[in-house]
């Protein structure tokens, strides 16, 4: 391999290289990390954030941001527990549609519109649940269970969503339009792209993915809690950014986001195995996010 292609490879897979290094360091310090059961656990832990982050990838590529995904996940799970899983999905997509409508027709900045939704969806979750956790039904519980020994369904779902996200981004008109809108909204408009309608779909997708993530989370726990997934939106954004997407839009890939979510999960797992106190864990995670973003910006120079 020539230096040019090595450099190109590294610049397209910087996050992947980081993930490998991270895993190696942890494995050396704590060999139990490589235990098959532990690795599966990491995958399961990554699944919820990853699915949420895939939805976030659409939004970020299109130049927006969605702060409401954690609340939407909780609301969808709660509605799912109180009625049925699929209804939770519908509610999540509807919340996303409302976000999209506020942003494209109400001309609100995405930050504000989804910040409002963050509060509304969380509030509704508290109202519906009356502040109590509720048990999930068999269908939702199944989502969080093992299909066979050593075959956790959340892991498979994560891979399925990964595939869907990659397909949408690279093989559909909606996906191509996301890049155009995020890259230059005015040019997209003048090329005949109905930017407003596309945004509606983009935020609806994000809501739908968040709802799915919420159901998987509730399935794993066997219940939907009113305070579930608090702060998950930040992890989702971090995963997307670690994966190399640009918050100014137009750049981002499904593989990157998957790797980003895995980095976060490996890090959490490793810090636990190494018995780093939880307060310090937060500090380390923050530092790693900053480091990843720094490496990314250095690479682009």
């Amino acid at each position, binding site marked *: 391999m020539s230096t040019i292609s090595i450099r190109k490879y590294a610049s397209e897979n910087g996050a992947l290289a980081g993930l490998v290094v991270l895993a190696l360091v942890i494995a050396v310090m704590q060999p139990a990390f490589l235990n098959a059961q532990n690795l599966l656990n990491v995958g399961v832990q990554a699944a919820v954030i990853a699915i949420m982050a895939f939805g976030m990838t659409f939004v970020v590529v299109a130049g927006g941001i969605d702060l409401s995904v954690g609340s939407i996940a909780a609301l969808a799970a709660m509605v799912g527990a109180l009625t049925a899983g699929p209804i939770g999905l519908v509610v999540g997509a509807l919340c996303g549609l409302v976000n999209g409508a506020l942003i494209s027709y109400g001309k609100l900045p995405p930050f504000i519109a989804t910040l409002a939704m963050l509060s509304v969806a969380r509030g509704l979750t508290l109202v519906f649940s009356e502040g109590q956790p509720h048990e999930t039904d068999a269908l939702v519980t199944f989502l969080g269970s093992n299909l066979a020994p050593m075959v956790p369904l959340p892991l498979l779902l994560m891979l399925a969503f990964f595939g869907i996200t990659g397909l949408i981004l690279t093989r559909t008109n909606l996906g191509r339009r996301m890049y155009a809108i995020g890259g*230059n909204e*005015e040019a997209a*408009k003048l090329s005949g792209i109905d930017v407003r309608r596309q945004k509606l779909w983009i935020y609806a997708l994000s809501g739908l993915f968040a709802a799915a993530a919420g159901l998987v989370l509730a399935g794993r726990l066997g219940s939907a809690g009113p305070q579930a997934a608090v702060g998950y939106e930040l992890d989702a954004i971090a995963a997307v950014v670690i994966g190399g997407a640009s918050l100014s839009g137009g*750049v981002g890939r499904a593989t990157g986001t998957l790797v980003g979510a895995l980095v976060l999960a490996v890090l959490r797992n490793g810090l636990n195995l190494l018995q780093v106190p939880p307060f310090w864990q937060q500090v380390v995670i923050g530092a790693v996010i900053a480091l990843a973003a720094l490496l990314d910006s250095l690479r682009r120079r």
Partner: protein
Amino acid sequence: MKTLITARGITKHFGATKALDGVDLDINAGEVHVLLGENGAGKSTLVKVLAGIHGHDAGTIEGHASLAVIHQELALVPELSVAENLFLNRLPRRFGFVDRAEMRRRAPELLDRVGLDVDPDAKVRDLGIAQQQMIEIARALDKDAGVLILDEPTAVLTETETDRLLQIMVQLRQNGVGLVFITHHLDEIQRVADRITVLRDGRSVGVLGPKATTRHMIELMVGRPIDEQYPRARQRPGQPLLSIEGLTRRGAFEDISIEVHAGEVVGIAGLVGAGRTEVARAAFGVDGYDHGTVEVDGKPLRRGDVQAAIKAGLGLVPEDRKGQGLVLTATVGQNLELVTLGDRDQKRLHDIAGKLRIKGRVEQPVKELSGGNQQKVVIGKWLLADPKVLILDEPTRGVDVGAKVEIYELINRMTAQGRAVLLVSSDLPEVIGMSDRVVVMAHGRVAGELPRGATQDQVMALAVQEISA
């Protein structure tokens, strides 16, 4: 004569592309040194190496003169005011705060020097692209540098502003400033050049004196002679394909009626601010209008609905490629298929890229292309969509002489197939040479219409006339 900057054997790679290959350049005091070359020849790269923006892989640069550069792509902050942009980096201060009074006092002086009549408090975003260019020039002049480099400053200017700029350049030359001037307009070169360095594929292929003929310049830069610079092939006009009737938007344009028939190229000439771009955008549905109608092939278009316009068979190549035409982060291919999404015919895509002689790979990010090649991508995007009527707003801005002829041939081909073209252009020889009729606009109104063969003077006479409303 004093040599201010001496560059020898400058070589620069971008990955596998060799943008510069052993280029020599002298910048002398009191001399206008023109850099000439096709799109992608390496002119801007050379400028950026001289300015220290890009490093170079081999060669030496010597000299101590202070440098001011006007880059090809505008570098203004759209959300800041004209005055703030003029003094960006060197804002006058008092007690540690920006001294607004001082700024407002000094701004008009500078604006006056370039003959620009705008409110120093206006936001740059609200100005036209030509006015923005003049601000950029004023800002560079304020630095009183020993060497001034201008990378295609006239691409976005009209005749009057270009004249003004050339005058300023001549004056600076008298004061002993060393100037480097890049342009694709050969007539401008003949007016000011003392020396012409011709670049081709990153190599200097010759240095010409001030008396060089256009023919000689073209042959050196393109590698072959070009017989006809405006090869318009007229067609017998068919039924009307675009009818604009009484289009009015208060404060911008009034009672505009223009009809373009199948097989026809109709030009719109006029000064900056005459309302040409506004009419084009309104017709295409980007902006609204107060009254009037727009019909494509007999079908009325809904006001402010771009999708409907495109569906009816209208296309618009906008004037500002970076702001409105391109997704810079995306590849050439992705930009080309932006309008035709869904029909991903790779063969047609490569076809168009080849026909326009876009220098760059289809899978390369557009932002890595030279300015003129980016412009070709915007045009290619619409040629792929094959609309019935194509509105071209300053289509050959920054495009080299050879590639211009290719674009004109594509216009000819469109009209030969019964399509219609509305050509908005500030390039008088172009709008006269390529249009079957020229509509001249002044102060937001149609000032008159001229048949094929009109002279530049006739067009200008209509363009500058005062209309008493």
